[in-house]
């Protein structure tokens, strides 16, 4: 009956826990002397004379951030956050049972003001399987609230804390096995705005990285389960921003206009990997390193965000375009999903960035002229064909394939994809005596155009074909294609033949 003795102490409805919680969380306020009996329940913390009024906190789903706080006085701020275990998309075709704060990964963004008294309500959805709690790094007190918020499914816990220190803080579930709770998505950010507020910007966004450990490899479809061994070995299958591959891509990309200021609240839930947070093509004008309240560095390319840590980055957009957000540990971006986008719209700023000014062949600086390089390649090609005559045929296949592409971009509108043309208007290429009779004439028709009366397969045409603006390689490709398609049989048309015709015409 030793076990029953334990229960007697718990039967007093949570008295010990409440007393303990209030003493730990409010050492300054609940300054009861030793020997006095502290009051029980919510009144134990006494009354904070600074607090004015009461508000319900606005919570937002990522990547959105609640509006800046304009209040000039601290208030009692009620935060209602619900833990929801739900199957969500990890990548296309890949589902995962995420454990979430508020239904999203990362969890709802919480914004409070320094000095606020936060009355925190943590609800654990009745359909959930697991107990959960919350450790807010913004809380001063053992466990960051975890000890006071441990909650069974279908129950709710309440605790209060004063936001003593401003800054951008991570919150997360701290129930054992904590790594698993975090690896399943249980983290988010809470911003404690300094009393004076933060400088005004045009856009604020919420981006949080996390690593995930699925039984299947990256991209393996179906409902994936948590893989403990991968998690312990710190070998994630996914490293993503905002809880899923592609959560900040395409229509879901972050948006801004040229000449606007952007502030990103960047967090890292981990549980294992530090983020080398980088926006390709942007320089952070300033970074509040580690989520502190002083801009600690200007002109930063990449800032490191550790698991359970944060950073605030700010920059002004100068040039329109799409800016890729990555963890610059690049295999995570390329192979594991750590990739987002910021789309900046507005007029070009060519002085800041010109776009591509030159695009030409570069043959290296080995001192070889272009002609001799080409001659050498040609020689190699001849030798290769000599060694294996099938290669010659292969090169025709390649020409055909490329020619088809040219045809379907440039020629098909008149001559049709079937090569039949349109009777009386555009002559046919399919089984065309006119086309096949004279290779040079066909080349000329493309590079210089063709007009006036002609007879094709005994039918008269009298129209105008303008010169087609394609290069010599493309002329060779498309003519090889049309002369060997739709029942036509001919040899290949070489670039040399095209060049020759072009040179003759120049005289």
């Amino acid at each position, binding site marked *: 009956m030793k076990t029953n003795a*334990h229960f007697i102490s718990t039967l007093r409805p949570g008295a010990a826990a409440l007393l*303990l919680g209030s003493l730990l969380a409010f050492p300054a306020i609940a300054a009861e002397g030793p020997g006095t009996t502290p009051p029980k329940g919510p009144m134990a913390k006494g009354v904070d004379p600074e607090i004015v009024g009461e508000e319900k906190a606005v919570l937002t789903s990522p990547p959105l951030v609640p509006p800046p706080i304009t209040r000039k006085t601290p208030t009692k701020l009620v935060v209602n956050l619900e833990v929801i275990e739900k199957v969500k998309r990890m990548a296309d075709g890949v589902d995962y049972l995420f454990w979430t704060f508020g239904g999203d990964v990362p969890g709802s963004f919480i914004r409070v003001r320094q000095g606020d008294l936060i009355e925190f309500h943590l609800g654990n959805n009745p359909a959930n399987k697991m107990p959960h709690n919350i450790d807010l790094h913004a809380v001063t007190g053992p466990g960051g609230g975890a000890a006071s918020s441990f909650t069974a499914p279908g129950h709710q816990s309440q605790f209060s804390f004063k936001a003593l220190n401003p800054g951008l803080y991570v919150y997360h579930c701290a129930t054992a096995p*904590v790594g698993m709770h975090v690896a399943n998505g249980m983290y988010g950010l809470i911003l404690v705005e300094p009393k004076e507020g933060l400088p005004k910007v045009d856009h604020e966004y919420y981006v949080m990285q996390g690593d995930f450990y699925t039984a299947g490899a990256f991209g393996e479809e179906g*409902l994936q389960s948590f893989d403990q061994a991968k998690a312990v070995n710190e070998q994630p299958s996914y490293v993503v921003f905002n809880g899923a591959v592609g959560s900040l891509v395409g229509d879901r990309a972050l948006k801004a206009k040229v000449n606007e200021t952007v502030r990103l609240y960047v967090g890292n839930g981990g549980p294992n990997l530090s983020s080398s947070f980088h926006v390709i093509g942007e320089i952070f004008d300033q970074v509040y390193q580690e989520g502190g309240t002083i801009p600690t560095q200007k002109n930063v390319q990449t800032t490191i965000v550790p698991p359970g840590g944060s950073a605030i980055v700010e920059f002004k957009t100068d040039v329109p375009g799409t800016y890729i957000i990555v963890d610059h540990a690049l295999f995570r971006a390329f192979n594991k999903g750590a990739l987002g986008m910021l789309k900046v719209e507005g007029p070009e700023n060519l002085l800041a960035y010109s776009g591509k000014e030159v695009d030409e062949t570069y043959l290296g600086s080995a001192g070889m002229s272009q002609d001799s390089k080409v001659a050498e390649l040609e020689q190699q090609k001849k030798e290769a064909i000599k060694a294996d005559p099938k290669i010659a045929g292969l090169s025709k296949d390649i020409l055909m394939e490329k020619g088809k592409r040219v045809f379907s971009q440039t020629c098909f509108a008149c001559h049709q994809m079937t090569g039949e043309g349109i009777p009386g208007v555009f002559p046919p290429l399919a089984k065309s005596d006119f086309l096949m009779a004279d290779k040079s004439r066909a080349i000329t028709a493309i590079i210089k155009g063709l007009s006036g009366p002609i007879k094709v397969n005994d039918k008269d045409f009298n129209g105008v074909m303008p010169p087609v603006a394609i290069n010599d390689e493309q002329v060779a490709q498309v003519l090889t294609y049309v002369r060997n398609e739709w029942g036509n049989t001919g040899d290949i048309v070489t670039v040399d033949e095209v060049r020759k015709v072009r040179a003759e015409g120049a005289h």
Partner: protein
Amino acid sequence: MRKSVFISLAAALLGAAALGGSELMPVPAGIYLPLFRGENDLKEIPVARFLLASTAVTNGEFLDFVRANPQWQRSRVKRLFADDGYLQQWSGDTELGSRCTAAQPVTWVSWFAAKAYAAWKGGRLPTTAEWELAAGIGFTREDGAKEPEFKQAIARWYASPSPATLPAAGTGRANLHGLRDLHGLIWEWTSDFNSAIVTGDARGDTGLERQLFCGAGSLGAKDTSNFPAFMRFGFRSSLKASYTVHNLGFRYAKDP
């Protein structure tokens, strides 16, 4: 309405016929190594041979109990002994209704109610040591930790969401000693469910309490890689004796 009642009844009959109800099965004596251990706790807890019900108690069985013991009916139970959620899946004090079946394990029951049921059956709730010892037995061998298929079956439950409708009790694969559903159906009450946290000594409380949270959860833990055991301990620790939860039920034990 009539139809769904009929289906529930049919399911109940089928379940009973197919499963033959719960039986008390002997569990051999063994040594339980507690997951969490304070300085003054035993390193090894010897567990004597005991009897454990092969399946969790069902709605149908619990209905018999509340009929015989009206003080445990939904409208009569004292709030001190069961919170507002008590038997909320039933349609009335002595009717199951259409939202549950007689063959499903009974959930939304408090520790007090579970304890009373076990006593009514002439038994008791298993201790955590007994329950964990029984739950460690594999499908085909005594030590489930050495049986990959058994471990995978456990992990699968944690990776899948709660089903909208619970399966009937006794449908899980039996372990070596004929016990079913210790994993993969519901959580289960134990007699000393919260002793890992509350010892009655405030200083000890904080020490133990902090062990469960964050990285400190691994301090004093016997086997940090046994995640399911952590989750069970976590779950038990989140409870109070009056709590009821949608996926928390129980089975009873008996001394031989």
